[in-house]
C-alpha cells in the first residue's frame, strides 16, 4: 500500500472473462454484416483465456455464457475497474444492459468497491474508457454519453477524466490502447490521429505514441506482471501483417500475438474480452 497512488500501472492479478453464447453468431451487434463462425470464435477465445491463465498466470474468473445475451463475451463494456473500485456501467446498447449483473456479482465476490451507474440518462461502455495509468480518457461515442463519463469521473475522483469525441469506429479503444506506461498505441486513420491529438492536448502528461497502420490492430492489452515484466497481447501477423511488425519495436515487451479474426466481425477487440484487475494480497 505504501506504493501509493497511481503506482503499478498494468499490474494485474485477476481477469474476468465470459463464455461465447451460440447466439453470438446471429444476434450479436455488429457494425458490418458478417458471418461469424461460433466454433472458430470459441477457439480464439479459448486461446485468449489460455494466454491469460497459463501463459501469464492470472487468476481467471470465467463467467458462463448466457444465450440471451449474445454480446456477453465482451465483458469489458460492463465494468471499469481501477484500483479497488469497480464501476458497473450502463452499456449504451439496450440489449446489453443485463450483462452487468453477472459482472457485478463477480466483482463483489472479489471484494471490490462496486459503484453502480444508476442514472437512467447515462450510458457508458467500458470500450470507450482508456485508462493511461495517470488519467482517463472517455470516448463520447454512440455507446457512451457525457453523463456516463461524469459518473465515471465521480467514481474515480483521483484522476482527471477527459472526454474525447469518437468520430468513427464503435469505441474509443477501437483504434487505440495503452502499450506501456505513457505509451499510447494508436491507429493511423484520420479519426484516430485526431483523437490522439485531442488526448495529448487534454493531458498534463506526455505520452509517447506507437502508430500502427491498422486501427483495429491498435487495440492491445498491456500488462506489467511481476514475473514477466512488460507484456503485450496484440494482433497476429495473419490479421494485420504491417501492424504486427510494429510491435516488434517494443523490445522490452513480452509479445503475445492472439488471433481475433472471428470476434472482430462483431466489433470485438482484444481488450473487449476481459476485465483485468489487481487484487493485492493485503486487501
Amino acid at each position, binding site marked *: *500500500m*505504501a506504493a501509493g497512488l497511481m503506482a503499478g500501472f498494468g499490474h494485474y492479478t485477476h481477469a474476468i472473462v465470459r463464455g461465447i453464447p451460440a447466439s453470438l453468431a446471429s444476434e450479436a451487434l455488429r457494425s458490418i454484416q458478417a458471418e461469424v463462425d461460433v466454433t472458430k470464435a470459441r477457439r480464439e477465445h479459448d486461446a485468449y483465456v489460455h494466454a491469460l491463465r497459463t501463459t501469464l498466470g492470472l487468476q481467471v474468473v470465467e463467467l458462463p455464457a448466457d444465450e440471451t445475451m449474445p454480446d456477453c463475451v465482451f465483458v469489458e463494456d460492463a465494468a471499469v475497474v481501477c*484500483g479497488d473500485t469497480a464501476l458497473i456501467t450502463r452499456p449504451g446498447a439496450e440489449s446489453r444492459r443485463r450483462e452487468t449483473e453477472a459482472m457485478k456479482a463477480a466483482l463483489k465476490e472479489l471484494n471490490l468497491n462496486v459503484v453502480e451507474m444508476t442514472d437512467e440518462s447515462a450510458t457508458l461502455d467500458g470500450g470507450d474508457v482508456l485508462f493511461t495509468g495517470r488519467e482517463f480518457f472517455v470516448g463520447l461515442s454512440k455507446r457512451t454519453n457525457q453523463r456516463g463519463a461524469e459518473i465515471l469521473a465521480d467514481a474515480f475522483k483521483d484522476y482527471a477524466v477527459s*472526454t474525447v469525441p469518437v468520430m468513427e469506429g464503435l469505441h474509443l479503444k477501437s483504434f487505440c490502447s495503452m502499450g506501456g506506461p505513457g505509451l499510447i498505441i494508436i491507429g493511423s486513420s484520420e479519426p484516430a490521429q485526431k483523437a490522439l491529438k485531442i488526448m495529448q492536448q487534454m493531458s498534463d502528461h506526455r505520452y509517447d505514441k506507437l502508430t500502427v497502420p491498422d486501427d483495429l490492430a491498435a487495440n492491445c492489452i498491456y500488462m506489467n506482471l511481476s514475473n514477466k515484466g512488460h507484456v503485450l497481447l496484440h494482433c497476429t501477423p495473419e490479421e494485420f501483417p504491417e501492424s504486427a511488425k510494429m510491435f516488434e519495436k517494443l523490445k522490452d515487451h513480452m509479445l503475445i500475438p492472439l488471433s481475433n479474426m472471428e470476434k472482430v466481425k462483431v466489433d470485438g477487440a482484444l481488450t473487449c474480452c476481459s476485465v483485468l484487475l489487481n487484487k493485492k494480497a493485503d486487501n
Partner: protein
Amino acid sequence: MTTEAGSETEVKENAEEKSAARLDQSKKATEKTQEVVEEGEAEKEKEGKGITRYLPTWFKKQKSQSQTSPTKEDPPTEEPVSKVNQEEAHVPEVNGHAEEVEEKEQVKEKESESHSNASADTEPAGEEKVEESAQKSLESTEETQEVAEKEEDKKEVEKDRRQGQTSIFQSPLRLVRKNKMKLVVCHVTLLDGSDFTCEVEKRAKGLFLFFKVCEHLNLLEKDYFGLTYKDHHEQKCWLDPTKEIKRQIRSNNWQFAFNVKFYPPDPSLLSEDITRYLLCLQLREDVASGRLPCSFVTHALLGSYTLQAEIGDYEPDQPRPLDYINQLTFAPNQSKEMEEKILELHKSHKGMTPAQADCQFLENAKKLSMYGVDLHHAKDCEGVDIMLGVCANGLLVYKDRLRINRFAWPKILKISYKRNNFYIKIRPGETEQFESTVGFKLQNHRSAKRLWKVCVENHSFFRLNAPEQPPKARFLTLGSKFRYSGRTQNQTRMASTLIDRPAPAFERTSSKRISRSLDGAPMISITDTSREAENGHEPHLELHSDSKSPGRVRGDNIYVRHSKLMLEDHDKTQDEVLKHQASVSELKRSFMEASPPSPPQLNLWEKHLTSSPATATRVQQQTVTTEVEIEETVVVQEISKAAKPAEELQTWEGQVQGGARLEKKRESISSESESDEEAEYHPNVSLSIRHAQIPEEKEEEEEEQERKELSASSSPVEVNQAAAAVEDEGKDCAEEEKKEVGAEEPMKTPDKAPNGMTPHEEVMCVTTEEEELPKVNGEDSVVEARSQVICCSEPPVVKTEMVTISDTFAAQKSEIATKEVPIVHTETKTITYEAAQLDGSGDGEPGVLMTAQTITSESLCTTTTTHITKTLKGGLSETRIEKRIVITGDCDIDHDQALAQAIKEAKEQHPDMSVTRVVVHKETELAEEDD
C-alpha cells in the same frame, strides 16, 4: 540569588513561570477587582504577546525600554516582592513596573491558564532575570516577565514602527511609511487554524503583512504562499503585496488567511521541511473540505500519513486512537469505515518520521488531478455552466467533473477580460492558420478580473523565469497594470538553493487542533520538536495541554532556543533575500520604465517599417519573445480595427500610432468609463521582461478617480488633438540621474513614414514646440503606475496631447499624421502627473550609471541617456543597458525623421537594442490667439 540567576539566565523554565503564575494567582485573589478593571488592557496585552513571543530577538530592546517606564501604581501587597527584586535583581524599574503589570497578567492567567504557550513564549523576556527557587522569587520572575510583556504591549506600536522603518531600509519596496501612521490590528488565520495577530500601519502594503506572517512562521520559501481576504461579496481574493492593504480590503475588515497560492508541482523539490509541512496543512484542508477531491482509498492513505506525521508511530498501548481520530477531519464525509482504514494504514507507516510522512503525503497528493487547480465558475458561449481551472500548466475547462478542454500556457497568446467576459487567444495549431479566441462568461466583472489576475500570476510564476514588470504608467490609459510581483518558481527555487540554515524546528501545529478538540483550550503550546515526534514517543504530549509536564518544558526550551537561533539566521537571510529581491525588481522596474532595450522589439519595429503590418504576422526572430510580440501586434491590429472607441482607448498605448490615435480620442473619451473594465495579458513571453504593450485595466478605485479626471481633462480636447504629446516616462529619467548629452542633427530622410511616426529605438521622446515647452519630457513629469493623478490647470493656451507609440503599434491609419492636424486655436492644458505613491523606487538603486551625454544644437536638442546597471546579487548577475533619447525641438522639425534618425544611430551603436517606447509630445500654439 543573583549568582543563581547568572547560571540560569539562558534557561528560563516555563514551567516555573507558569506554576508561579498560578501560585500568584491564588495569592493575589484579593486584587481581582483591580484586575478586572484592567482586563481590557490585559486583553490587548495578549495580542501584543501574540506577536512578540515569536520574535525573541526583540526582547532585549524591549526590556531596556521597559526599564525607563514609569511605575504607575504600587499595590501594597506587592511591595516586598518588588523590593526584593530591586535589591537583588538590580532591575528596580522593571520590578517596580512589574507590579502594575502583574495584575493584568493575572487576569490573563485566569482567562487562559491553559494558554501555556503565552507564557512559554515570552520566555526570552525572562532570560535575563533572576531565577529563584523560592516562591517569592518565582513571583518576581513572573513580574519581570510581565513587565516585559506589558512593555511589549506598550511598545508594540513603536516596535512596529521601528520594524516598519527597518523594512524601509531593507527594502526599497518601501513597505510602510514613516511614523505617525495609524496602526491597525490584522488577524491572519494560519494554515493550522490558529490565528496570528499583528499590528501594521494603516498604510502598509500587503507585502509587509505577508512578511510578518512568514517571519512568524519561520518560513523562507514564501513565494508559494500568499494572503487572502474576503471582499464584500465574500469572495476570496489574493492580497496584492504591492498595494496598500487598506485599499484592497475596503470593508475595513482586517481579516486574512495565509494560504498556498502556487502549489509546487513537485513538492520534493522544496528545500525545507517546514515549507512542505505548510503545504501539507493546506492540502489537508483542501482534501478535508472537498476542494481537492479524492477517492476513498486516497483519503485513507493521506489521512494515515497525516496521523503518522502528527502522532508518530502507531502504538498499541496508546489511548484508543479511534477516540481522537474522529475529532480530525480527513474527508468531507468521513465514515467510520474510512477511519478504520486510516488507522489500518497508519500502522504500516511505523518508523516514518513526520517529515517523511509529509513527503509521502505530498507525493500522493500531487498526483491528484485537481492538485493545485484553482476553479472558477463560468459559462461557455452557449451559456452552459462550466468551471475554469487555473493551474501550473495552463487553463483547464471542466464541465461537471469532466475535463472538456485544456489550454496549456504555451498555447495561450493573450489573456484578457472585458466586463464579465474572459477571453483567451489561442495560438494556431500546426494546421490552422489563424489564432482563435475563446470567450467565457463569468458571473460579473469582478470574477472576470479575479480570474484574469490568477491567470496572470500563475502564468508568471510557473512559466516565466522572471516576473514581467507591470506596464508603466501611461497617459490616459485605463486598465489594470496588475502583474505578478513576486518571484517566479524558477527564482524561488534558485533562492531556495541559497538557504543555508539548519532545518528549523517547528511546531506541528495541527496537533494543536487535536488538543483543542480534546480539551477545548484554544491555544496550547505544543512543541514537538521533530526529534520528539520522530521517535514517536511523545504523542500524548501533543494531545494534552499539560504545560507542567517536564518533558514538555524541555521541549519548549529547545524550541525557543532553537528558534532564536533561527530567527537571527532568518533575519539575515531574509534581509538579504529581500534586498536582493527588491533590488532586482527595483532595477527592473526603473529599467522598464525608462524603456528597456529588448532586442526583439527593434526587429519588430523594423518589420513594421519595412512591410505592411498586416502582413507582418510572423517574423522569424531570434527569440521566442519576438514571435510573441509579433503576434501581439496582430492582436493590436485587430483591436484597432474593431472600431469601438472604448476598446481603442484600452489599446491606446503602444498600439495605435500617433495620428490614428488622435483621431480616435475624441470619441473614446466619453466611453472611457466602459473601457476600463477590461485588461489584457500576453502570457507568451518567456523570460524576457516585456514592456508595456499590454493594455489593461486600472484598479477599480483608481478607475473611478481616473475616470473623473479623464473626463475633466478630456473635454477640452477637440480639434487640435494632435497638438502636443506629453512624454510620460519622464519620471525615470529624473530618478535615474540621467545626464543629458548628445544632440544630434536630425537627418532628413525622405519622410513619409508609413505611420504618423516611425521610429524607435528605445525610448524616444520627440517634442516639438512652438511655444515655451514646459519641461515635460523626462524631467519632471513623474508618473507612477497606478497612482497617477492628472490635474488640469488652464492658463496658457496650448493644448497638450500625448501620443505614445510603442512597438506594438501598427495600426494602419497612418493618414492622420500629427503634423497634419490643423492648428486652429490655442489652448493650454497642463497635464501633471503625480505619483501618489512614490513607491520608494528611488532608494538604494544598485545600478551604476555608466555614461550619459547630451548634445545640443540650436533647433533641436537630443538628449541621450545611457544607463547601464549591473547587479550581482545572490549569485545572479544582471546587466542592463538602457538608453533614452529625448529629442526636443522648437520649430518645424520633422519629428518623424528626427526619430528615424535617432533610432538609426542608436541602432548602429547597439545593434541588438530595441525600441520599447516612443512618445511624442507636441505643443502647438496658434498664432491668432497668441497675440
